[in-house]
């Protein structure tokens, strides 16, 4: 069986319009989360990571007409464009496109600037696929907040079954009034930038971003490459909107993954958690990680840098995990103050160098879904 790798990637976010720019911002401890005052649902403002429309249009103007595409379409197209630019030899006829999004163009609901069928996620995917001339029908994964990583798994599996020879996995979601008001109705939004795993955490901050990565066999002569080992999902079977108190689904996904791939918890060098900074989510993750014997593994959440970018989050975090492995570099869990879960974790407090070989990425979401994925550095 051929192995698949995480090849070129791109992150388009408030802190950078390429993976390089994003890594640089993280190294400088910059965060996308800024005070915003543009929502009628937050009389006193709120914190979120937003991307300026003017900057998007300026960048997009180099490759297309900004008025033909929605904000989210432009962001995802920009991300894919960057990946394709580094692979000019890619055979687009045999390359799959897997798109992860939770809400797509939901900001266009009730508006008339674009035809109403743009609300359909498959239509948005088709617009993006047609921009580049992908020949195969795009696949859309919409499975709440695990979608970004589940899209990587889907791409890998479809390459394995022979549907694609390789695939671009792209993700995008916006901070819309729809999503802001919904999270606010749950009283889940933090009054300050979110603080994952901290004692003083008060809820999520939302962020918008797009990302893309090429998945497939690696035929290059690179010294180090990041191999996709496997991913497993498991449902909590407990509650549709609240995390399981025992971390059951997350624990199941991790333990099955390690068992099936014959990896011991002690072999994992780095854990990229979901860490939304709600009281219950972070507590659930801490319990699941303890049950899986991961309490000493260096762990972070990237939500302090980006906020929760929904369908993009697990893809961005997988891309950053890939770069952590390649560069032997652990990034601080931004905004962390002091341990705030009933079971202690080894939260990364400062950027640091460390030899890394195997990383575990996890994500959880509404609907009780959980995912665990193993990435491994192969060195020649």
């Amino acid at each position, binding site marked *: 069986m051929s192995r698949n790798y995480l090849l070129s990637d791109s992150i388009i976010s408030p802190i950078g319009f390429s993976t390089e720019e994003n890594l640089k911002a993280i190294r400088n401890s910059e965060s996308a989360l800024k005070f915003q005052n543009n929502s009628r*649902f937050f009389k006193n403002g709120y914190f979120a990571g937003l991307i300026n429309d003017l900057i998007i249009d300026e960048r997009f103007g180099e490759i297309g007409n900004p008025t033909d595409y929605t904000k989210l379409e432009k962001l995802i197209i920009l991300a894919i464009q960057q990946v394709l630019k580094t692979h000019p030899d890619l055979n687009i006829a045999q390359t799959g496109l897997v798109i992860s999004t*939770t*809400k*797509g163009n*939901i900001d266009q*609901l*009730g508006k008339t600037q674009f035809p109403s069928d743009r*609300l*359909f*996620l*498959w*239509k948005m*995917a*088709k617009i993006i696929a047609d921009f580049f001339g992908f020949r195969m*029908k795009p*696949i*859309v*994964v*919409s*499975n*709440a907040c695990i979608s970004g990583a*589940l899209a990587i798994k*889907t791409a890998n*599996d*479809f390459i*394995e*079954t022979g*549907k694609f020879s390789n695939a671009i996995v792209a993700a995008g979601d916006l901070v819309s*009034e*729809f999503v802001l*008001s*919904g999270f*606010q*109705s*749950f009283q889940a939004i933090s009054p300050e930038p979110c603080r994952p795993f901290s004692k003083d955490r008060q809820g999520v901050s939302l962020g918008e971003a797009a990302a893309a990565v090429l998945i497939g066999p690696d035929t290059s002569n690179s010294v180090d490459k990041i191999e996709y080992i*496997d991913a*497993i*999902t*498991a*449902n*909590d*079977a*407990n*509650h*549709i*909107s609240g995390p399981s108190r025992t971390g*059951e*689904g997350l624990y*199941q996904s991790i333990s099955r993954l390690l068992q*099936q791939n014959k990896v011991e918890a002690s072999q994992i060098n780095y854990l990229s958690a979901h860490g939304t900074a709600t009281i219950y989510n972070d507590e659930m993750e801490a319990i699941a990680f303890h049950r899986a014997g991961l309490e000493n593994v260096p762990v972070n959440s990237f939500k302090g840098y980006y906020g929760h970018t929904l369908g993009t989050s697990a893809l961005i975090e997988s891309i950053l995990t890939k770069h952590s492995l390649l560069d032997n570099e652990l990034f601080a869990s931004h905004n962390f103050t002091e341990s705030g879960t009933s079971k202690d974790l080894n939260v990364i407090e400062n950027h640091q160098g460390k030899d890394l070989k195997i990383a575990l990425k996890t994500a959880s*979401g*509404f*609907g*009780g*879904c959980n995912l665990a994925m193993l990435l491994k550095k192969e060195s020649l």
Partner: protein
Amino acid sequence: MSEELFITKSVIIRDSKIIKNGKPFFKADPDASLSEFLKTIYKEEHLKYPKFFKMDSLSKLVYLGVELLTEGNIPDKKTALVFANSVSSLETDEAYAGTMGEFPSPSLFVYTLPNIMLGEISIRHQLKSENIFLISEEFDPTIYLDYTKALFQQKKTDNVLCGWVNLHNNEYDVFLWQIARSGRTDFNEEELKKLYLPTHE
């Protein structure tokens, strides 16, 4: 090497009718509203599941479909769920958006993700299993075939419950089926299309 897989059971809920394993099973008043139709099935099947009344219509359709398909029993708790539709949760998105003017409704907002129905099935049948929700323009057998084949090949599961579940502007289309290593109907594109659009009604 790909192993042989089979469709063991199927259910269709469409046009006020239920078709079970290719045969007409139930026919309701075609003039009844969707909510009346859903309640009728619930009563006819003698179901007792109070959570049903909290669900949005899309989840109600799926819940009922799965009860009909499995006769209320999924013995293999590792049965994977592979679902798709074309309109995501747009019906409930629009209903939620209607509440945004005054008091955004948390109980509607929670149903504005299509995979919530997978959570509902998992809770009802205590499945702590593989889940995925995909979106495609129309019913596309190939995505189920590929995703399911990979789950079996990778030894992630022994049983899969698949679904194509659409609801928009009160028009609904539910097609559920189960996949296993033994059975009578081959799990392939042709058989799926035949089951999805039966010609002998």
